[in-house]
């Protein structure tokens, strides 16, 4: 744990600390607390996006994306929205997920470096 630039903990792994007011002593947690802003949080976000994409795919929303590209006309707002959600999750999988995974790895390396420092 790093507080005011000094390490006070024997378990300085990233994502292992609780939130604390500056200068306040932090008890060593029995179990590791989960932080969204952490390598693990990034991996979990990635998994959620992938799961959302999988669900959209299973619902057959891929078939409706032509509506968004103006290459087909269905006249249904529901299908338009379904296609939009599908495309968002798809972009999440192909653009956001790899970035999140890579960022998670970088985050872990930086955290380890900071903790050692």
């Amino acid at each position: 744990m790093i507080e005011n630039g000094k390490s006070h903990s024997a378990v300085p792994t990233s994502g292992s600390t609780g939130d604390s007011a500056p200068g306040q002593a932090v008890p060593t947690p029995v179990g590791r607390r989960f932080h969204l802003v952490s390598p693990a949080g990034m991996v979990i976000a990635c998994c959620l996006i992938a799961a959302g994409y999988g669900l959209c795919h299973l619902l057959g929303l891929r078939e409706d994306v032509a509506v968004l590209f103006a290459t087909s006309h269905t006249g249904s707002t529901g299908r338009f929205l379904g296609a939009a959600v599908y495309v968002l999750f798809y972009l999440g999988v192909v653009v956001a997920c790899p970035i999140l995974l890579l960022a998670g790895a970088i985050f872990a390396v930086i955290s380890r470096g900071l903790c050692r420092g």
Partner: protein
Amino acid sequence: MSRARRILVALISLIIATAVYLPCMHWAFRPAVNDLVSAKGVAPLPAKLARRHLHMWTDPKELKGELAKMRAANAEWDFMGRSFLTWSLANMAMREPAQAGAMLAAMDRIIDQTLLIEREKGMRFFLMGYADRKPWVQQPPRSLFVDGEIALMLGMRCMVEDKTAYRVELDRRIKEIVKRMEASPSLSAESYPDECWSFCNVTALSAIRVSDYLDGTDHGELIGRWLAYAKANLVDPRTGMIVSAYRLNGQMIYPPEGSSVWYVSHHLALLDEPFGREQYELAKKHLAGELLGFGYAREWPEGLADHMDVDSGLVLPGSGASVASTGLAYIAAGTYGDVEFLQSLTTSVSALGFGVETDGGLRYAAGNQVGDAVMLYGLTTGPVWRKLRGRK
């Protein structure tokens, strides 16, 4: 680590990851050259696209559904899907003579059904609603859009293997086309009332060239006059590209557009190769773009943007990338052997086309049948034009 520091580290990590990943992302979608083009046979990607089309044309239910989807948006797409597919199959039959039988059977099915519809429902079945909003200048009304593409379908089919009934129909149509072009002050015929499209006129001229090849006739003088007229009157002074549409008297209606000029350059490769190459180079200069390895084509040159319509398809804000222009760029890139551009365009299609593979066939859910057929034509074009030029 404090929350503030954790957020800072996360942001730095995300920035580094984005900077590393985005420039590399296109590699995940970039196809190998051998998947796209083949000097003699049919490469794997077009083979998959063709398989899906061939399956569709033997499955009445699937065909009806696909055509209905397109017709709800634009009746022209139904017709053009037939044309591009037939032209692709003719090129494929020449690339793989062992498969010619299957290709000919499919071409005949498409042509017969198209001619039947035209006979029973008239040319307006394949035209947009405004075909009736004002009188046609040349009487009786005929659309060069329909006549030219059907003539080229018939002609290309007969170049693979002659068929008397089709030759008679081709001859009849070519005579009508030539008569109307000769009678027009711009040497062009109407596709819609007082609306001549470069797209349709170059198609008709190529059909005339095919007919000359088959019959031993020579309309070179008419083709030469049309080209001279186009160079003098139909070239946009700002860009040097051929305009999309004009009145029968030659007055411009629509400036150069990606959904037209790429395709026009493909036909000019047959009619006047240097002029065609010049148009292709100008189109690349004004319309082609690439972002992080993903190729696209704009509908309008930068600074000359118009409104999105049924011809342009979706136009993405910012880049100006147009679905129609990007699709038709395939045909020009395939014609001029621009493999790098084909790869770049296919990288985008692989990423955003939402391919659906079934039974060894491939279609793109983001597009429609005509879009897939255009792509197929771009990836198979070559043999018919080469055969015609060899005879020239």
